[in-house]
């Protein structure tokens, strides 16, 4: 079993309950000596969803909707329901997820446990902000229904599945006038320009994100495209097609994404996107989930897998810090074909370990080339730490405990709410 980045592979004892009444039995078998971990669709890249040689509860078959009120948009569903399936139900009724990460293959439980964010963070906050209630099963004492205001709830949102097993989640969906977005792309030649354009666009657009080419340095450092969109007011409401149209059936050979191909790929994308002038209309699927059309795209990085690096820097240090990060990446020649920039809004985080904070987030992929990749990321860590930033646990598989603890000052408060019968490779690594 491996996480999405496929760098770490380990054996697990996997239980796959299909009915909620089976969960108690699995939880009874867990203890501090033999901790377990509930996981969803395993889109976290690093080791937050791994428990090597230990027990795993695969929650994905617990995917039933318990109730959905078409009038109020409140949905309660078992934690294993995917956002993709939720959308199949929400969209035809004129509702949408309050926010969504860049893949719809995430469970509700995972969305809560990682307090995921999306392109509308500046407008909507994180997924946790929409959660009204959830049911948490503890290995050390029964079931609890908890909601905002309860400390255990705020530990559970963003709590990486460590505070208990989330049985169900109740969230408030948002009304949408259609299933399409009116979008426009703006090219920027330098990363400084990104900040100006993003600061202006966030007032008039619900969804914004930028794509940055990290493979070129010098004068072209940080060129990119900022996409911004609002819901189209008059269209019909049609959900996405559930099945991916393409798949990557096998691991790509290691040379597929070498420096040349990455650079060529980025340049072509840059040219194509710059040529698109003016606004365009897009169904939500390609705009919000550009990679979901290709199943198992993570295999493109070859059998050794890849790392993702996602940090957030506060507003005061973001401009200089992001430029410095991009420069270090360009110099390394290990540029990723997908780098994303996005400004987070000032909303206070719901969870004690929620990743988003006001500022700018940068996310990149690095093919795993062993030591040199780890060294590059350690260099990036120093830049992030100096800028008072932090890293996203869902993307991480290697940061040292100091880096985590400095980035998440509430981690000591959080610790008190950890279920002793639950643990992960990530938690053992960073809480030591």
């Amino acid at each position, binding site marked *: 079993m491996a996480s999405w980045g496929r760098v770490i592979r380990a054996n697990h004892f996997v239980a*796959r309950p*299909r*009915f*909620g*009444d089976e969960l108690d039995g699995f939880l009874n078998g867990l203890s501090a000596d033999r901790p377990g971990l509930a996981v969803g669709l395993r889109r976290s890249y690093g080791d937050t969803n791994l428990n090597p040689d230990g027990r795993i509860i695969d929650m994905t*078959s617990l995917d*039933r*909707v*318990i*109730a*959905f009120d078409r009038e109020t948009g409140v*949905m309660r*569903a078992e934690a294993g329901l995917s956002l993709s399936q939720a959308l*199949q*139900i929400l969209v*035809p009724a004129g509702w949408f997820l309050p926010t969504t990460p860049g893949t719809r293959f995430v469970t509700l439980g995972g969305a809560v446990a990682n307090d995921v964010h999306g392109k509308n963070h500046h407008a909507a906050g994180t997924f946790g902000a929409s959660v009204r209630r959830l049911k948490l099963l503890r290995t050390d004492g029964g079931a609890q229904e908890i909601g905002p205001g309860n400390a255990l709830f705020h530990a559970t949102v963003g709590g990486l599945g460590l505070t208990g097993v989330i049985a169900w989640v109740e969230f408030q969906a948002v009304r949408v006038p259609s299933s399409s977005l009116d979008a426009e792309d703006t090219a920027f030649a330098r990363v400084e320009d990104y900040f100006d354009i993003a600061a202006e666009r966030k007032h008039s657009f619900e969804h914004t994100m930028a794509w940055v080419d990290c493979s070129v340095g010098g004068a072209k450092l940080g060129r990119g495209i900022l996409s911004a969109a609002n819901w189209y007011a008059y269209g019909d409401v049609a959900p996405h097609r559930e099945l991916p149209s393409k798949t990557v059936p096998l691991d790509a050979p290691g040379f597929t994404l070498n420096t040349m191909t990455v650079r060529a790929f980025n340049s072509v994308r840059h040219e194509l996107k710059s040529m698109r002038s003016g606004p365009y209309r897009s169904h939500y699927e390609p705009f919000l989930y550009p990679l979901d059309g290709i199943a198992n795209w993570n295999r493109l990085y070859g059998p050794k897998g890849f790392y993702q690096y996602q940090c957030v820097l506060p507003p005061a240090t973001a401009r200089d810090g992001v430029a410095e990060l991009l420069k270090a990446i360009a110099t390394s020649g290990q540029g990723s074909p997908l780098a994303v920039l996005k400004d987070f809004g000032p909303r206070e985080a719901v969870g004690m370990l929620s990743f988003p904070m006001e500022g700018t987030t940068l996310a990149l992929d690095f093919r795993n080339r062993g030591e040199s990749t780890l060294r590059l990321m350690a260099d990036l860590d120093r830049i992030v730490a100096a800028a008072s930033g932090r890293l996203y646990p869902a993307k991480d598989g290697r940061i040292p405990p100091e880096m985590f603890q400095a980035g998440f000052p509430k981690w000591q408060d959080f610790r008190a709410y950890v279920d002793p019968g639950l643990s992960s490779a990530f938690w053992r690594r960073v809480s030591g």
Partner: protein
Amino acid sequence: MDGSLGAIAMQPDLKNTIKPSNRVVILGALSAMATAAARIYAAEGAALVLVARNEARLAALAADLRARGAVEVETAALDLEAEAPQARLHLADWAKRLGSVDHIHLVYGYLGDQAKASIDPTELTRITVSNFASAVHWCEAAANILRAQRHGALVAVSSVAGDRGRQSNYAYGAAKGGIALFVQGIAHSLAGTGARAVAVKPGFVDTPMTDGLKKGGPMWASADQLGRALRRAADAGGPIQYAPGKWRMVMAIIRSVPAFVFHKTKL
């Protein structure tokens, strides 16, 4: 286990105003592939009766299907093996509650353990009763309804294991092969009436029933794939359908291997 029907949870006014796309009875509704098929029906706006043993689990599935668009969902908690002699009464009752019935899916079954069945008559009985001896009553009762109304479909889950007796699971294979022959005969008897019968033969399916086996690779299908195959079989195709379709060729080859070669394998 009582044989009573669960409550109708859809608002009565809605039930009477929206015409369901299909009226469907699912026997063994809690299996992974039955649930997958039921969700397709729900999204189409069907009315369903879900039959299985566990009442609380049926209620949870019914709520899910309502949220996914089913216009009406009823549940019947009963033991399909024990109640098989009463199949005709039960089916008539459910058809009445739905107004009529278009599709009947028989999905329940029991894989069992061949080694145990070889020495334990109880296990051997359970395998053959679950997969064949009880199933024929439900199939015959369904066929009688379909024949009389001259439309609709019976879809019964068989298995590729029913295509050749093998040392590792011949009790299960014989029962599943038997039900395919039975349904094939029903299909013949329904020819020209407008009604249909189909035996679906899945290959390896990633469900809890097969959790003891090593999984993965191109020959394994998901429960969702099988759900789509069951739903499709109710509308179209011949009386014996392999799912996925490539199993037809695979099993043709396996059936044609001479015994002196086959007996050298441990399949």
